[in-house]
């Protein structure tokens, strides 16, 4: 047992490090975010400034909370984004997935370790510079209200995004045109993750459904937790409650992805796609 944990730890470190090195070659590309992130933020700022006018609270959020929400939402994106879906579909399409079946490794764990390495770059070249720009240059108070809950919530988001994307990637084991599913998911995710507009603005029936879908747990909830939002999900969830819902969603997602992973490997070793 102890030996196994040590092995996984060593493996994780090696894979994460290799991935970090691999993407280091492109680290300057991440600097695009340092321009693009603040540029979008400025537009959001003025859009909501105009919309708020003299109103103090809209959908349970003050103008200040709204501004901080958009800041947090973008920053969380840098720490938790991944393209496990695209990557896995590419491995399946090119047949390169075979090289993982031939090694004593679980590819899903491998991909998660890769994400760790990849996001360390995101932390250094996207998250920290953009945080400093928002905080020091734009003067937005980005201090998390509850630091512990915020870190926990972002950690869950990190995993949630991964398991969702990896699961989407796995559809390529079963379908020829799995790319379409990915695009459709992303379409919905754009609108419903909360990156464009907080979930609070949606009608109650949509918000109810959202509780049972993965979208809001990948961006909206952690951004609300970060900013200490008062009316989370529009149902007045408290911060610990919101993180709890996020945790439940993650457990369900992991379970689902585990089932699909087993089925996928079974299928791969049966058809050798």
């Amino acid at each position, binding site marked *: 047992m102890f030996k196994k944990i040590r092995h996984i730890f060593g493996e994780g470190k*090696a894979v994460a490090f290799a991935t970090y090195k*691999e993407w280091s070659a492109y680290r300057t590309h991440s600097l695009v975010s340092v321009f693009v992130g603040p540029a979008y933020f400025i537009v959001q700022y003025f859009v909501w400034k105009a919309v708020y006018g003299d109103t103090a609270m809209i959908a349970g959020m003050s103008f200040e909370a709204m501004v901080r929400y958009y800041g947090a939402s973008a920053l969380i994106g840098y720490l938790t984004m991944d393209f496990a879906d695209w990557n896995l579909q590419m491995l399946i399409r090119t047949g390169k997935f075979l090289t993982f079946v031939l090694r*004593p490794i679980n590819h899903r764990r491998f991909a998660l370790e890769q994400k760790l390495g990849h996001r360390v770059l995101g932390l250094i070249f996207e998250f920290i510079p953009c945080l400093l720009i928002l905080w020091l240059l734009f003067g937005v108070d980005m201090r998390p209200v509850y630091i512990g809950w915020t870190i926990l919530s972002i950690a869950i988001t990190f995993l949630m995004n991964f398991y969702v994307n990896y699961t989407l990637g796995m559809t390529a084991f079963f379908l020829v045109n799995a790319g379409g599913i990915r695009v459709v998911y992303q379409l919905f995710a754009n609108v419903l993750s909360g990156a464009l507009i907080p979930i609070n603005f949606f009608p109650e029936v949509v918000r109810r459904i959202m509780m049972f879908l993965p979208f809001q747990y990948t961006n909206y909830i952690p951004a609300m937790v970060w900013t200490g939002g008062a009316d989370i999900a529009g149902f007045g969830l408290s911060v610990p409650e919101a993180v709890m819902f996020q945790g439940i969603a993650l457990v369900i997602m992991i379970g689902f992805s585990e089932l699909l992973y087993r089925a996928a490997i079974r299928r791969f070793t049966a058809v*050798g796609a």
Partner: protein
Amino acid sequence: MEIISVKDLRKTYKTYKRSEKGFFKSFFKREKVLVNAVDGISFGVEKGTIVGMLGPNGAGKSTTIKMLCGALFPTEGEISVMGYSPAKERAKYVKKIGAVFGQRSQLIFDIPPVDSFAMNKAIYGIPDDEYKKRLAEMVELFGIADVINKPTRVLSLGERMKCEIVMAMLHKPEVVFLDEPTIGLDVIAKATIRETIKKMNAEGVTFILTTHDLGDVEELAERVIVINHGKKIFDDKLHELKLLLGNKKIVDISLTAPFEGDAIDGIPVSKNEDGTKISVELDLDKTEVKEFLSRLGKAVDFSDIEIKELPMEEIITRLYTE
């Protein structure tokens, strides 16, 4: 000692026939077709040998090697490699073997091979000191000391393939599967890859390799298995394969004057280029070389002569079409 034994191996795929009836009809109602990719193959492999698998595209050799590696479940039949049942015990089994599938690289494109190696070290859980020793040995053996620290993307195909083989063998597997190890390489790179495989084999590693390139087999494999249409059609020593079609030689003759006929003293001409360069396929069981030469000298005037083995390509083509 037999390290690999395969008994009556079969693999059947279900595929769907594309119907002409239009999208929706074919979407809901598809015609099922069963394809026997591997159709009852049996063989055994002795420890420390190199076995070459030959066969045209789609013959079933890739499917066979995938089943041997544990990446594919057989539909029927038994495989035992070092006492393991590959697909059933895949997790344990793959730690003990090495596999290189020529077109599907394990190396990470943007970083030096040595970093990819370090990753595999962790994946296979190779202890530090063992890894260092092994890597030093293999780097020496393959002559890649100055290669492993350059990013993979700048390496030549031959250098990449060497690193690919090193990466698959760091954990000291006893059995190594190579799928098309020399595909796309130039003559020199092919030769060095073959050389390194021979060296590893000399240390007792068993190799199974599939190839299109008869040179690989001629250089490396003492034994050849030929597969076509999912069936084993030949399994023996290489020179037996050559004898299979009779004890024949090719004789190229340069003539001083153009020759028009289609036989020289009753022996048919197999090739005739512009009349002065002709070839004859000589069946040694019927006509010995000495006798042929004297008959040839009487029939025509020639300036040069070359006696060659029947080329492997020729043998294989005939074997496939039979």
